[in-house]
Every structure is written in C-alpha cells, then in structure tokens.
C-alpha cells in the first residue's frame, strides 16, 4: 500500500478512537445524570435513609460528606502547605531530601484501602477515636497530604525568581519572603489544586469504610452543640458519607427502591464533583487575573 493511503487510514483510526473516547465520556456522564436527576428532590436530599421501606433519602450522608470535607481541609491545608514549602524552599539537595521525595511518592501511590486499614489500626483502635468523623478526617489527611505537598511545590516553583530575590535583597528574612511575597503569587495554583483535591476527597469511600464507619446514627438537626452525641457537629460520632452510602446501598441494600437511591446519590455526587472542578477552574482564572493584572 502507498504510504499516503496508510497515513490516511491511520489518521482516520486516530480520529475515530478520539471520537469514541469523547462519546464514551459523554454517555457516561449522561447516563449518570439522566438516570439520577429524576430521583433528586428536596425530600430526597434532606430525609434520612430507610432500611426496608422505600422513600429513603440521603440527608445525613450529604451533611456528613460536607462536614468531613471541612474537617479534613482544616487539618490538611496547614500541614500540606508547610511540608510543600519545606520541600520547595528549605530542603537541600542531598540524600535525605531524596529519601523524603521517595516517601511522598510512595505515599501518593498507596491504595486508598491501605490508608483506610492504617486508619482502622491507628486512629480507630490505637488512639481509640472509634469509628468517627475525626478518624475519617485523619485518614483522609494522610491520603491527601502528598497531593497537597505537590500542589504547593508546583505553585512556589512558578514564582518568578526575581521577585524572591528582590525581597531577599531588601533584607527580609526567608520565611517572611515566602509568607508575604511568594505565597500570594503562588495562591492561584495552590487554590485550584486544593479545590480539585477536595473533589477527590468528596468521592473517596475505601479509606472511610473502616475509619468513619458505615452507619449513621440518628441526628438531631436542631441541636448544634458539638459535644452532644446526637448533634450533627459532634466530630466523634460515626458518620457514613455519600460515597460510602452508594457502595453500601449497591452491595447490601434491601429497600425496594435501591437502584433509584443509588442512581440519585451517584448523580448528586457527580454533580458536586463537577461543581468542584468547574469552580476550581473559574476561581483559579479569576484570582490569576486579579493578581497579575492581565486579561
């Protein structure tokens, strides 16, 4: 065959496969949304789940997911940014730094179920936090830290060297330079990355099954005292998140409307992840424009 004919066929194949992938993604998203959205209603989003009868909702699970995300971020962000600053600015290029880099890489490729098992052993049993939001938040912190470190490093590497040197030349200490000159410049990158990481946390289930637990005790949404056992704000109560609920409903649900609940909950989860993704992109662009005065 002539080389040009082969080239045309090959181009056709490449385009065909690319189109197939786009179609696959579109139909995947479409399937989840079309099947699930019809089941979403205010009642579904706010009422507690039912075990045997139909008409169960996902209210507590939705609240747990959001609350757990907030708790995790409160713990992750200071540690992750601190560690990222160390790796990017203070670490000297020696064997020790190489080792730490390897550790971060290994931690980021650990399966989430291993992180969950570690959480079960250490946070739930050893420190005796029990199956609780707090244990779950700590497990998710472990799961999320390497990503946070990488994001911070990336952000700081993108700061122009001249800005850093100008600040240092004024006699400002390195730490103040990092805090008040470099971090603001790196903020758009760090912010975008953090929100994307938050989306990932939102959908995580394997690390939570054995740490935050798979049951949701009765919650009293009028009681906002964080120390009370039925208060939604109590971080030491077991909490099933939305992602864990989808898994549980699919594998052991016995209510007659199980498929609809799974579809509705999946749609809610995917919509929230989409919101995180688009939000991160838009916010990143906005902050970048604000800080660099470009169009």
């Amino acid at each position, binding site marked *: 065959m002539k080389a040009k004919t082969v080239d045309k066929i090959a181009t056709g194949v490449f385009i065909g496969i690319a189109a197939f992938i786009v179609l696959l993604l579109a139909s995947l998203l479409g399937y989840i949304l079309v099947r699930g959205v019809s089941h979403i209603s205010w009642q579904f989003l706010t009422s507690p789940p039912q075990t045997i009868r139909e008409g169960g909702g996902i209210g507590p699970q939705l609240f747990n997911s959001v609350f757990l995300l907030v708790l995790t971020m409160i713990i992750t962000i200071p540690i992750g940014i601190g560690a990222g600053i160390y790796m990017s600015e203070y670490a000297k290029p020696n064997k020790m730094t190489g080792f730490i880099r390897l550790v971060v890489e290994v931690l980021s490729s650990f399966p989430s*179920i291993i992180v969950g098992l570690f959480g079960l052993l250490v946070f739930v049993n050893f420190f005796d936090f029990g199956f609780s939001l707090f244990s779950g938040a700590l497990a998710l912190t472990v799961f999320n830290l390497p990503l946070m470190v990488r994001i911070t490093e990336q952000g700081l590497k993108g700061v122009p060297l001249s800005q850093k040197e100008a600040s240092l030349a004024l006699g400002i200490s390195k730490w103040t330079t990092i805090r008040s000159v470099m971090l603001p410049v790196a903020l758009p990158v760090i912010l975008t990355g953090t929100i994307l990481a938050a989306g990932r946390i939102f959908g995580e289930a394997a690390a939570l099954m054995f740490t935050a637990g798979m049951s949701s005790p009765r919650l009293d949404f009028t009681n906002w005292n964080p120390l009370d056992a039925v208060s939604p704000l109590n971080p030491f109560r077991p909490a099933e998140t939305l992602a864990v609920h989808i898994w549980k409903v699919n594998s052991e649900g016995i209510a007659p409307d199980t498929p609809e609940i799974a579809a509705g909950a999946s749609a809610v989860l995917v919509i929230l992840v989409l919101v995180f993704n688009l939000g991160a992109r838009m916010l990143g662009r906005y902050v970048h424009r604000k800080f660099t005065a470009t169009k």
Partner: protein
Amino acid sequence: MAKSYDRLEGKPHLTEEWVGKAYTFVCIMFLVITISSMVYFVASKGLSTFLVNGVNVGDLLTGLKWNPEADIPLFGALPFIFGSFSTSILAAIIAAPLGFCAAVFMVEIAPKFGRKYMQPVIELLAGIPSVVYGFVGLSVIVPFFRDTFPGQGIGIAAGAVVLAVMILPTITTIATDALAALPAGLKEGSYALGSTRYQTISRIVLPTTLPAQMTGIVLGIARAFGEALAVQMVIGNAPHIPHSLFESTSTLTSAITLSMGNTSMGSVHNNALWSLALILMLMTFVFVFIIRMLERRSKL
C-alpha cells in the same frame, strides 16, 4: 550604637526565620513518620499470620483454596493475587492503546480542539468517584455482558472494563505530556525527509516517547491494582480462579473490603486479611520502583 541595633532588630529576625523553618520541618516530618508507621503497622500485622499463627508463606502465596473459617482453615491467596493481576493488566491492555491514540489526536492532529475541549473532559473523568464507576459498571456493563456472553456477566472482564475507563485519564494525560515535550526538531527532521504523519508517529514519536508511555501504563496498573470498591462491586467475589473471563472471582482488595469488617482483630482470619494488605503494599513499592526506573530512562 550598631550593637544595640543588632540586639533589638536582628534577633526577632532570626527567631522568625527559625520559627518558619521549624514549622515546615515539623510538617514534613509528620509525613515521614506517618508513612513509616504505616509500613510498620501493616507489615507487623501482615507478618503475624506467619510468625504467630504459623501459616506457611508458600502456602499462602500458592494455595488455591481460601477457607479461613473451616475446621482446618485454608489460606490460599493465589486466586486473589491472580484476580488482581489479571484485572489490572487486562485493564491496561484495553486502556493503553486508547490513551495513546487520544494523545496523538490531541497533540498531532487537532491541537486546538484537543487542548480546549478534550483535555478538560478527560481531566473531569479522573475526578469521578470510584463508587460511581462501580455503580455504572453494575447497572450497565454487567447486564450487557450477561446478555452477550455465557455466564453471569460479573467477573474479570467486567472488572477490567470498569478499571480501563478509570485509568484512561491517567494514561492519556501522561501520554499527552510526553508527546508535547518531544523536541520539535525530531518530528520536523522526519517530515523534511518526506515521511508521512503516520510514519513519523510510528517510527519517531512512539519509539522516543516509549519510556514515558510505559510510565503512564505502569501508573495506571498501579492505580487499578489498588482500586477496591469499583472492582468489588462487579467482580462477584467468589474465592477461586475462574475458568472464563465472565465467571465470578475475587481480587486482593475485594477480599479485604468484604471481610475486614466481619472478623475480629487478632483472629487468624483477620491476620490473613492483613497479609493480603501487606502483599498490596509490597506491590505498591514494586510499582514505584518500576516507575522510577522508567523515569530515569526517559530522561536520557
């Protein structure tokens, strides 16, 4: 005068610097301590099956029967190991060509459309939670396989398809980066000699970016290997090596997911599950090692 100035202004300066350095160092040490204790705890738990309960390492790795609750408990984990390897490698075999073709399309054929629309969509796909993939697999792929092929639909094939879609973004993103990072001179030289685009791609672009492409594939396999819930939902969870791709089987992760909550800490069954987790962890080290080797090669 100069001395008093130093005493007043110089010291807070140093303190401040010291505080910053100490704070970031504590943060990074937290990370190192966490992973060390993770390795220590999982290893000590996983090894206690052999050291405390006296199960033979060889029996666990090569045994075909898993029946920990029987009168004479059997701990043959080979079906799980086989299930994990077969699903993740099959997933990579499906996803790798697709990812490479998508990357070629985005970089070489339609860069504008690729950068602007296709890449964000593929990144979006990476953000979809694994339970949602499992749910779609359970409600679309399993019924489809059940109707098309003999068997119940659940099994290695369903697991591999779900995993392939899950790791496609990883493989595509790395393949795209590798293609985009290729020096333009290489391609231009090939075009200048009169080769067509396909000849350039197959003889210049693919061979030079091969180590990087392999990195993406290994990363994908590593992710598929550790994925728990999506696979558990579609694989059927029968603890034996299947005779066909459409027969119920198990993986390391699905066995752990299913039984860890039902066994009590310290029992032989529980310890055996920790041994499975240890195998999973050791495989992670192997994958990281392979990726490091490949990255070193692609730099040359």
